[in-house]
């Protein structure tokens, strides 16, 4: 398959000897048939100079290859002459003048053209030709000459980069964007980080935009690549082939996000390690994307919302606190005197890097989605393209550093807005970065969440990720924003914090500070100055005092009401809300976002923080529940076809028992150091054998009270034997519902199936409750069902002796239980189990409790 056409090269230089020597150097790299090369250099009488007429002739000569012409120039008049020459070429072939370094660019272009690459590819290659040298001198790149052990061993099998006489050949690949959200801020940050770490020069292009520098997250984001868009990845320099392949794989993976319909299958992109220096096997570059089929970006979703949308459930009443950020626009007319510009640039750079560092530090202190979001925001502040552009405004035009940041980020905001959809929703992140940098330059406090003594409803134009990091979920009852959509950071973070939230509430910031509002994050309802009747419908914490234990029914049947704790930040809330200990301490926060397991010492410190808050009370620690929706790179497989049914929970201990043993040891050490009554349980136990094995390990580590969670139908069916093997069991209703009903709990469409009110789920719980009663084993419930005040009595009637839930639900559940007898609970349980569907079960339970 030899290429039918060749790209011709024209070398324009002031000096004929220079052009001839550079051309000879380039030709040394080509083993086979060289591409047409024409030189236009020096004057006819042998002097230094360029001549537009001669350049025009050279373009004509180089066009003989039929693949278009790439023109490389040295400097000054060479550029002018080359541009002018285009006016002299009658019937011109496709010609590209590239601002590539003359010698390096010529070398790269000749090699690529010899390999049969097309004009675009040759041009991109030439443009990136300076990268290896720059990195070598800046010492920024990984040492290419290092022994191959480090990088090569764990790299995925990639088409190895063909090397001609020591020069790494470029690599090209295409990847199809498959995640619904496309290459928005977080994926862009991930991709750019990979590029910067690799030291390769990489560009991305889509059929309609680019190429952009792939080390620039902003650049990547401005491609606006939505699902279905084919991204062309071109790389050169050290590690190019491996990096291009890694980028292709990352894009094809969908970044672990939701995949667009029709794009869930295997990724379509394939790397083509292109550019053999021999002309014979010059199959080279992947064919351009077929125009109509895959190349059309998804249409941007409109961002403006006609009416408020509830994005995080809950119904609360409280006074508002308005957050209005946005730095004042810096003076556009102010100019920095030339003598002071170097200092101004230094200050600008320092401020941008400082903010990037600060954001990254904040990211490191949190976990989950908030970490991803902050990392993406930090990447914007650290974007090298942004730094270059802003500094150029100071250097060339004398803008103040504040103004330069303003101008550049406003320009980016406009680009994001133009792209629409999710990108437009990221405008707030950009403005937040802008305002933080400007605040630092001005030496003033950065914008943030207002300080209030009392709980409040936070009202803002929009929230930036950093605003929500410092947000105290106890003080902040709800979030209402004017901007943002269902996928905005406000929505994501509010859901994660369990704070009711509404977005798209136009005009909300015009309300007077302190105005009392009712917020319903399920319906999107926002009521200004609600009357008493409306206020009574709210279930938020402001209307309910903390729980005062002990938890029990009206007739004195004891039910322990504990809190679920997922991170140290939940501790204070649990204590303040009157929790009777912790019924479920999720330990994943210690492990997430790490590439290796945490040390025993790190774990001991984290566990002690929680145990110390509950002296004399029970804290039930669940061992690491990784896998499925909580993958860990060092423990779980990423390629499972069905992760919910895969190696997750206790099953990961088969793969790596040391992680579990270390954790059990850390829990035991922490328990010995504090006064809480620490119990430990394993997640996702399916067989009696697993239960026996876990109990033995935990006891060997020195832990006395050992239990397990029941989340699988198999565990429910052998509950008697499980109860005999351990000291207690705890029912995880979310997973038990999912597995019993064979309905993905993350699927909105299946929400009515994966419902703990389903009679089949209730009957499973009954099996477990009965087994607990027969064997004298305490049965707890630690799923979301425990926080449902209507369901709690049913669970008690089914045999639950403890309920553990999000702290804010304890008061309501405690109040309901104290109003009913155990006999009523049992009657409600029987009635619910006998019902035909969730709605009938609710009605039956309500009726039985009212009796």
């Amino acid at each position: 398959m030899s290429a039918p056409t060749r790209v011709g090269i024209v070398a324009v230089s002031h000096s004929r000897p220079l052009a001839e020597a550079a051309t000879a150097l380039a030709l040394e790299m080509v083993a086979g048939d060289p591409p047409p090369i024409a030189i236009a250099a020096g004057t006819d009488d042998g002097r230094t100079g360029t001549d537009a007429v001669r350049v025009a002739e050279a373009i004509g000569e180089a066009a003989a290859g039929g693949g278009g012409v790439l023109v490389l120039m040295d400097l000054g008049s060479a550029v002018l002459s080359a541009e002018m020459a285009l006016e002299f070429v009658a019937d011109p072939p496709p010609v590209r003048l590239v601002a590539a370094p003359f010698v390096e660019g010529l070398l790269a272009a000749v090699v690529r053209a010899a390999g049969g690459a097309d004009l675009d590819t040759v041009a991109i290659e030439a443009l990136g030709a300076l990268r290896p040298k720059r990195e070598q001198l800046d010492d920024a790149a990984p040492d290419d000459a290092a022994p191959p052990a480090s990088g090569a061993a764990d790299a995925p099998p990639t088409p190895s980069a063909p090397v001609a006489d020591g020069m790494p050949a470029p690599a090209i690949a295409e990847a199809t964007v498959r995640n619904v959200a496309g290459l928005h801020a977080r994926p862009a940050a991930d991709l750019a980080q990979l590029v910067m770490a690799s030291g390769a020069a990489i560009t991305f292009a889509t059929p309609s935009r680019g190429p952009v520098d792939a080390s620039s997250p902003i650049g990547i984001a401005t491609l606006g690549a939505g699902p279905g868009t084919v991204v062309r990845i071109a790389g050169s320099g050290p590690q190019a082939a491996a990096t291009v392949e890694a980028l292709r794989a990352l894009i094809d993976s969908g970044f672990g996000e939701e995949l667009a319909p029709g794009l869930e299958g295997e990724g379509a992109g394939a790397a083509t390690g292109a550019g053999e220096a021999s002309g014979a096997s010059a199959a080279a570059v992947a064919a351009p994307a077929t125009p109509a089929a895959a190349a059309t970006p998804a249409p941007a979703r409109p961002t403006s919302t006609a009416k408020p949308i509830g994005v995080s459930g809950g119904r609360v009443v409280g006074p508002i606190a308005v957050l209005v950020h946005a730095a004042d626009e810096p003076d556009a007319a102010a100019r920095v005197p030339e003598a002071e510009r170097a200092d101004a640039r230094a200050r600008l750079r320092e401020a941008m890097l400082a903010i990037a560092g600060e954001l990254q530090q904040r990211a490191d202190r949190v976990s989950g989605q908030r970490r991803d979001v902050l990392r993406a925001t930090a990447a914007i502040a650290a974007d090298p393209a942004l730094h270059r552009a802003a500094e150029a405004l100071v250097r060339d035009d004398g803008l103040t550093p504040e103004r330069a940041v303003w101008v550049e980020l406003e320009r980016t905001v406009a680009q994001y807005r133009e792209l629409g959809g999710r990108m437009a929703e990221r405008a707030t992140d950009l403005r937040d970065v802008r305002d933080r940098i400007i605040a630092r330059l001005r030496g003033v406090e950065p914008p943030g969440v207002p300080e209030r003594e009392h709980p409040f409803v936070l009202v803002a134009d929009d929230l930036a990720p950093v605003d929500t990091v410092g947000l105290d979920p106890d003080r902040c009852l709800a979030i209402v924003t004017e901007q943002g959509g269902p996928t905005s950071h406000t929505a994501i973070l509010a859901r994660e914090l369990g704070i009711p939230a509404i977005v798209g509430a136009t005009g909300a910031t015009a309300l007077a500070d302190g105005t009392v509002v009712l917020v319903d994050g399920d319906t999107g309802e926002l009521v200004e100055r609600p009357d008493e009747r409306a206020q009574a419908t709210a279930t938020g914490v402001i209307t309910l005092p903390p729980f005062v234990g002990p938890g029990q029914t009206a007739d004195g049947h004891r039910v322990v009401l504990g809190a679920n704790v997922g991170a140290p930040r939940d501790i204070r809330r649990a204590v303040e809300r009157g929790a009777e200990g912790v019924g479920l301490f999720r330990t994943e926060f210690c492990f997430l976002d790490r590439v290796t397991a945490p040390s025993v010492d790190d774990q001991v410190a984290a566990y002690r923080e929680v145990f110390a808050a509950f002296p004399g009370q029970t804290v039930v620690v669940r061992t690491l529940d990784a896998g499925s929706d909580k993958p860990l790179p060092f423990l779980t497989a990423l390629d499972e076809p069905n992760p919910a049914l895969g190696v997750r929970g206790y099953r990961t201990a088969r793969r790596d028992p040391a992680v579990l043993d270390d954790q059990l040891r850390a829990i035991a050490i922490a328990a010995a150091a504090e006064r809480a009554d620490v119990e430990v349980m394993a997640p996702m136990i399916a067989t009696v054998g697993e239960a026996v094995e876990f109990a033995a390990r935990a006891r060997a580590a020195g832990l006395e009270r050992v239990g397990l969670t029941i989340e699988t139908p198999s565990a429910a069916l052998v509950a008697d034997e499980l109860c005999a093997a351990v000291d207690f069991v705890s029912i995880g209703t979310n997973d038990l519902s999912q597995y019993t009903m064979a309905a993905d709990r993350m699927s909105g469409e299946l929400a009515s199936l994966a419902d703990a009110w389903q009679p089949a789920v209730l009957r499973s719980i009954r099996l477990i409750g009965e087994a607990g009663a027969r064997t004298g084993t305490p049965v707890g419930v630690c799923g979301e069902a425990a926080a449902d005040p209507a369901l709690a009595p049913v669970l008690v009637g089914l045999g639950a002796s403890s309920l553990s839930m999000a702290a804010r639900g304890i008061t309501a559940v405690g109040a309901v239980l104290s109003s009913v007898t155990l006999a009523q609970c049992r009657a409600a349980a029987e009635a619910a189990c006998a019902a035909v569907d969730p709605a009938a079960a609710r009605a039956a339970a309500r009726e039985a409790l009212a009796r």
Partner: protein
Amino acid sequence: MSTTDTLTMPAFTAWLAAFRDRVTEQRSYLTELDSAIGDADHGANMARGMAAVMEKVEAAAPPTADELFKTVGMTLVTSVGGASGPLYGTFFLRFGMAAGAVTECDAAALSTALRAGLDGVVARGKAEAGDKTMFDALAPALEAMDAAVASGASLAEATAAARDAAAAGRDATEPLVARKGRASYLGERSAGHLDPGATSAALLMEALAEVAAS
């Protein structure tokens, strides 16, 4: 002193000859300016280019303005070597195209043609005011000339105004930092020197004023 209100073909040739004489006389000065911030070839290049132009023009004088200035432009492009080749080349090519197949120009037509030439320079060099280029001499010159023509000045008066404005523009390049061409590599060090391109452009306007006044 007699004045005329149009420039004829002989006057155009005289303008070119006067420009050649000036760049030849000031060849060392231009080169000295260029040695401070460039590659020390502007004087030599312009002198050689204009000598080649006059050789061609005197050998076979083209009959109309467009032909004449096309010859001038192309000759400069192929003989100057430095950036002045494409820049002055473009200036004269566009000047000729705007003037058209005529044998004389009045002040307004001359101004229009000069403007077209300057637009060509801008398109080619992408220079803006303050970049320390020939634009900084030519742009104020054409503004002054247009203003003079608008107020009813004679051709001689208008070109004299252009000459003075070009000289002032040239002088104003001294403190500037070059942002175009090879001089831009010098950055701050390019300040404190007259721009050679602006200096030769001022000579072009001087030559024009001299011919219009004769």
